[in-house]
C-alpha cells in the first residue's frame, strides 16, 4: 500500500482523553463481560497508546481483519447470539478495541466517542441504580472533554477543555430536565429485546414440591414495594396473591401457564371499601403480577389480565422494574358458582399416593360431620399436635405428605399448605394453593411497605358451598407469628434452632430503612416515571386532561424559552465591553476617512495622514480630532457635544 502506516504523534493530545472516555463507559459493563473481552480491550488500548507515543506503525489490515473475525466469533461462542444488551455491549467493546488499532485521523476518534456514548446508554439499560445518574454525568463530561480535545488547529489545555465541557453540560441540564419531564411516555414497547438482567431477576418457583431437598429463601432482596393511598392494612390481611397451583401428582404441585380468562373477573363479588395502592415490582422474568386479595382493577390495560384462578399476569415477562396500580377489596366473595366438573377437578388426587393421609382424612371427616367442622378439626390438629415451623425441614422421600404428617412434622408454609390441601382433597373438598408473599415490613421513613423474597408464602383456598373460595392459611395455625410478624422473626423467636445470625442493631436498621426509603422514591418517581405518573404530574401542574399533544407543545415552548435564556447568557458572555460615546463617534469618523489607524498611532498623527489624503476637508478633520481628544481625555459634556456636531456635519 502506498499509504503511510506510521503514526505521527498528532493524536497524542487527544488520545489519552479518548481512552479515558472509553474506560469510563466500559467500566460498568466489566462485571457482565467475559473476562477475555475486557482483557482484549485493555491490551488494544495500551498497544495503541504505545504506538502513538513511539510513533510506530499501526498493525497491518490483515492482522486487524484476523483480530476482528476472531473477536466476533468469540462473542458468538460466548453468547450464542448477537442481539440483546449483553452481546450488544460485548460487541461495542470489541469494536472500540479494534477501532483503536486503526485510528489515525480525527474522524476515527469521532467513531470512538460515538461508541462510548452507546456504551454509556447500554449500561443504563442494564442497571438503574441511584448512583447511575451521577456516574453517567461524569462519563458524559469525560466524553465531552475528549471531544473538545480533537480540533485540528490549536488545542485548549486539558483544564480549559474540561471547564468548557462542564459549562456546556451545565447549560444542557435544564433543557434535558424539561424534555425528560414533558416528553410523552408510552407504555407499549415497539419490539421486545431481551435485557441481560441475570444478576437482578428473582421470581417465585412456579411449582412446589415440599419434601424435596429445599429451603425457603431467606434473601433480603426486595421483591416489591407498595405505597398505599390510605392506611397500610393489618399484617394478617397482607396476602399478596401471585400464582395458583391446582394439580398434585403425589409429590409436586403445579399450575398453569399464565392465561387470560375473561370470566375470572366476573366471579368476584365485592363489598366494603377498596384499597388503592401502587406496587413497584423488581424484575422477575416471570409474568405474574402481585396484588392483595382480591384485585378488581389494575394498570397496563390489555397488557395485563386475570387468569382463571384470579391470578394477575402480564403478557410479557417482567425483565425490568415496573410500576403498576391496583384496586383491591378485602371483603370479597369469589367463585360461589362452581360447576360439579370443576369441583371434582379441584379435589383431584393421584391414586395410591399418601394412603395414611387419606385414611386420616376420612376418619376425621366422619367424626366432624360437616366440611366446615372438618376443616376446623384439621387446623386444630395442626395447632395442637407437635408440628414445628422451620426453614430447613428434613427431606421426605416417597409419599411425602404421609411422612410429613406422621413422622417428621417439621416444615414451612409449603409443607403445611400441601398437607392441608391433600387432607381436604382426600374427602372431596375443592382446594387450591396460592403462591405469593405474605406480610412485608413498613418503612417508617418512606411510609411504604417493603416485601422481600423472604416473605414468600404459600397458603390455600378452600371452596365451600355458598361461600365460594375462602382463604385458609394452615401455617397460621402452626406458627401464627409467621403471619403476624414475618418469616425471619418467626424463625428467631419460634423454634429457635440456632440460626447463625443475630437481629440487626437499631442503628443498622435505621440506616437500612433510610437507604430503602431513598431507593423507593427513586424507583417510584425517577425510574417509574411512566404514563401514569406523568399524567398525574401534568395534572398536578394544572394541565387539564393531559394528552401527548399538549405535553409536546409544552415541551417545545419551554425548550425554546430555555434556549433563548441560554442564548442571552452566551450573548452576555461574549459581549464586547461597552465603548463610550466618544469612541463610537470617532469610529464613525475613522470609517469615513477610509484609512485605518495604525497600532500605537495617536489621533493627531492619524489626522495628519488623513489630511494628506484629502478625503475630508481639513476643518472637519481638525474639528473632529480636537473634540475627540477633549472628550476622551477631558470628558466634559461640552466637548462631547462638539464632537457630536462635528461628526454630524461630516455626514
Amino acid at each position, binding site marked *: 500500500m502506498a499509504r503511510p502506516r506510521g503514526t505521527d504523534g498528532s493524536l497524542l493530545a487527544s488520545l489519552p482523553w479518548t481512552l479515558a472516555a472509553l474506560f469510563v463507559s466500559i467500566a460498568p459493563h466489566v462485571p457482565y463481560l467475559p473476562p477475555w473481552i475486557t482483557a482484549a480491550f485493555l491490551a488494544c488500548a495500551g498497544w495503541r497508546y504505545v504506538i502513538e507515543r513511539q510513533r510506530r506503525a499501526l498493525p497491518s489490515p490483515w492482522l486487524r481483519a484476523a483480530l476482528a473475525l476472531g473477536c466476533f466469533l468469540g462473542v458468538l461462542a460466548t453468547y450464542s447470539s448477537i442481539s440483546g444488551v449483553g452481546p450488544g455491549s460485548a460487541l461495542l467493546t470489541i469494536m472500540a478495541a479494534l477501532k483503536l488499532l486503526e485510528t489515525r485521523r480525527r474522524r476515527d476518534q469521532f467513531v470512538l466517542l460515538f461508541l462510548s456514548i452507546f456504551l454509556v446508554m447500554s449500561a443504563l439499560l442494564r442497571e438503574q441504580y441511584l448512583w447511575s445518574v451521577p456516574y453517567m454525568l461524569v462519563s*458524559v463530561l469525560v466524553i465531552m472533554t475528549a471531544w473538545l480535545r480533537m480540533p485540528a488547529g490549536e488545542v485548549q489545555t486539558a483544564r480549559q477543555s474540561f471547564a468548557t465541557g462542564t459549562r*456546556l453540560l451545565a447549560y*444542557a441540564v435544564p*433543557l434535558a430536565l424539561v424534555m425528560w419531564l414533558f416528553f410523552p411516555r408510552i407504555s407499549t414497547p415497539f419490539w421486545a429485546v431481551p435485557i441481560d438482567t441475570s444478576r437482578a431477576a428473582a421470581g417465585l418457583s412456579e411449582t412446589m414440591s415440599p419434601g424435596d431437598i429445599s429451603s425457603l429463601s431467606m434473601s433480603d432482596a426486595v421483591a416489591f414495594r407498595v405505597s398505599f393511598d390510605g392506611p397500610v392494612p393489618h399484617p394478617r390481611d397482607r396476602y399478596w396473591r401471585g400464582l395458583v397451583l391446582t394439580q398434585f401428582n403425589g409429590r409436586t404441585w403445579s399450575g398453569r401457564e399464565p392465561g387470560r380468562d375473561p370470566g375470572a373477573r366476573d366471579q368476584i363479588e365485592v363489598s366494603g371499601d377498596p384499597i388503592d395502592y401502587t406496587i413497584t415490582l423488581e424484575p422477575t422474568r416471570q409474568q405474574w403480577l402481585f396484588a392483595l386479595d382480591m384485585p378488581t382493577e389494575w394498570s397496563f390495560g390489555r397488557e395485563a389480565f386475570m387468569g382463571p384462578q384470579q391470578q394477575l399476569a402480564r403478557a410479557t415477562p417482567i425483565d425490568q422494574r415496573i410500576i403498576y396500580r391496583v384496586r383491591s377489596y378485602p371483603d370479597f366473595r369469589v367463585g360461589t358458582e362452581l360447576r360439579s366438573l370443576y369441583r371434582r377437578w379441584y379435589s383431584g388426587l393421584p391414586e395410591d399416593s399418601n394412603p395414611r393421609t387419606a385414611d386420616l382424612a376420612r376418619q376425621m371427616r366422619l367424626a366432624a360431620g360437616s366440611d366446615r367442622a372438618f376443616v376446623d378439626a384439621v387446623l386444630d390438629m395442626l395447632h395442637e399436635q407437635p408440628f414445628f415451623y422451620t426453614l430447613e425441614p428434613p427431606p421426605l422421600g416417597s409419599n411425602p405428605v404421609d411422612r410429613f404428617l406422621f413422622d417428621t412434622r417439621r416444615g414451612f408454609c409449603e409443607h403445611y399448605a400441601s398437607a392441608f390441601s391433600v387432607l381436604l382433597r382426600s374427602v372431596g373438598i375443592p382446594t387450591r394453593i396460592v403462591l405469593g408473599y405474605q406480610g412485608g415490613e413498613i418503612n417508617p421513613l418512606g411510609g411504604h411497605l417493603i416485601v422481600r423474597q423472604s416473605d414468600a408464602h404459600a397458603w390455600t383456598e378452600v371452596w365451600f358451598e355458598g361461600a365460594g373460595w375462602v382463604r385458609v392459611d394452615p401455617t397460621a395455625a402452626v406458627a401464627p407469628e409467621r403471619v403476624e410478624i414475618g418469616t425471619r422473626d418467626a424463625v428467631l423467636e419460634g423454634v429457635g434452632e440456632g440460626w447463625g445470625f443475630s437481629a440487626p442493631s437499631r442503628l443498622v436498621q435505621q440506616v437500612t430503612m433510610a437507604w430503602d426509603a431513598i431507593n423507593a422514591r427513586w424507583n417510584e418517581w425517577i425510574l417509574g416515571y411512566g404514563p401514569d405518573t406523568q399524567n398525574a404530574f401534568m395534572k398536578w401542574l394544572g394541565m387539564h386532561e393531559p394528552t401527548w399533544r399538549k405535553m409536546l407543545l409544552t415541551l417545545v415552548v419551554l425548550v425554546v424559552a430555555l434556549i433563548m435564556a441560554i442564548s442571552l447568557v*452566551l450573548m452576555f458572555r461574549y459581549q464586547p465591553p461597552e465603548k463610550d460615546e466618544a469612541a463610537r463617534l470617532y469610529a464613525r469618523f475613522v470609517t469615513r476617512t477610509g484609512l485605518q489607524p495604525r497600532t500605537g498611532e495617536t489621533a493627531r498623527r492619524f489626522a495628519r495622514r488623513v489630511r494628506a489624503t484629502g478625503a475630508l476637508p481639513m476643518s472637519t478633520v481638525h474639528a473632529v480630532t480636537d473634540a475627540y481628544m477633549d472628550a476622551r481625555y477631558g470628558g466634559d459634556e461640552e466637548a462631547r457635544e462638539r464632537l457630536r456636531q462635528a461628526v454630524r456635519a461630516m455626514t
Partner: protein
Amino acid sequence: MSSIPWPFPDARGFLAGLGRRGRDRVRRWARKRQGADPKTTTLSPGRVYILPTGVGLVFGLMTFAMLLGSMNYNNNLSFVLTFLLVGVGFVAMHQCQRNLVGLDVTFAGAEPVFAGQAIRYRVAVTNHSKSTRYGIRLYTDAAGSEVQDLAPGESRIFVLALRSEQRGWQRLERFGISTLFPFELFRAWAWLHMDMRGLAYPALVDDAPPPPPTMTARGHRQHDARGEEDFAGLRRYHEGDSPRHVAWKAFARSGQMLSKQFAGADTSSQWFDYEQLRGMDLERRLSVLTRWIVDADRSLEDYGLRIPGAEFAPAHGASHRRRCLEALALFGPGTA
C-alpha cells in the same frame, strides 16, 4: 447488442454543478443582503450563518436512535442521557454562532508579489470580548488560513494565500470566516466582502537576456568615469571595474568581490527601456524589465525605467523599485 446509453452521462458532474449553482445563488443573495463591507467589520449576529456538519448529522441520527431505544425500553435513565445529549446539541449550536459574533475583522493589506506567486492577504481578527474564541479559520474557495484561537482582547493575523494568475491588481471579492467550535456538530460562518486588493508585478522570468551595458548620463559607454568624490556604498564586482575600487578588505572578510561606489557628478546610470526590447510580446518585455530591475536593485545599482507613457529617472532604493514595478504591473490598457 450495443449498450444502452446511460441517460445521465455525467450525473455526478451534473449534481456538483447544481450544487455549485445553488451555492452561487446563496452567495449572491448574501452579498446583496449585506452590501459591501468597510475595511473593519464587526460580525453582527444577523450575518453569521450556521448549518450542521456531517458529524452533526450523524450525532442527530444517533440521538434519534437513542430516543427510540429509550422509548422502547421505557428506560428513564437512558431518556436522561438522550435528552442531555440533545441539550448539548442545542447549546453547541448557540455556542458555535456566538463564537463568531462580535469579532472585528480588518483587512491589513497584502504585500505585492510577482505574478504566479501567491498573494498573501493579511486579515486581522480581534476579539474584544471577555471570552476566548476558539478554532477560528478564514477561507476562500481556493485557500484557507490556519486555525487559531483568540484570547480575550487578542488580535491575530490570518493569512489567505492566493496564487496570482497575472500582473495587475488582484481582488479578493469574498472570504469567509468560520468556526467548528465546540464539538464540530455545527459550522458557523460569515461572508465578508471588503475592498481587498493586492498587486501582482509582472512574472519574474529566469531566462531574461542580460541587461544593456551601463551608460553614462550622456549616453556613452562607461569605462572608468564613475566619480570618486563621495563613497556611496558597495556593489557587486563587474568586469571592467577598476581594481582600485575593489573593496579588498571586504573581499578578505567574505571572499566576495565588491566594488566601491562613489556618488559623483558624473554618475553612471542604466536605462531599462521598453522600446529596446524588440521581438518579444508585451508580457515578456515587462517580465524582462522586471527581472532587470530586481537584479539591479539587489546589486545596489542605479537604474532608470522608460516605458511608453512613463519615465523614471535613474535612482535606487525600495521606493524607487516599488514605483517602477508598480508601473510595470499596471502598464497597458485595462490594467490600471
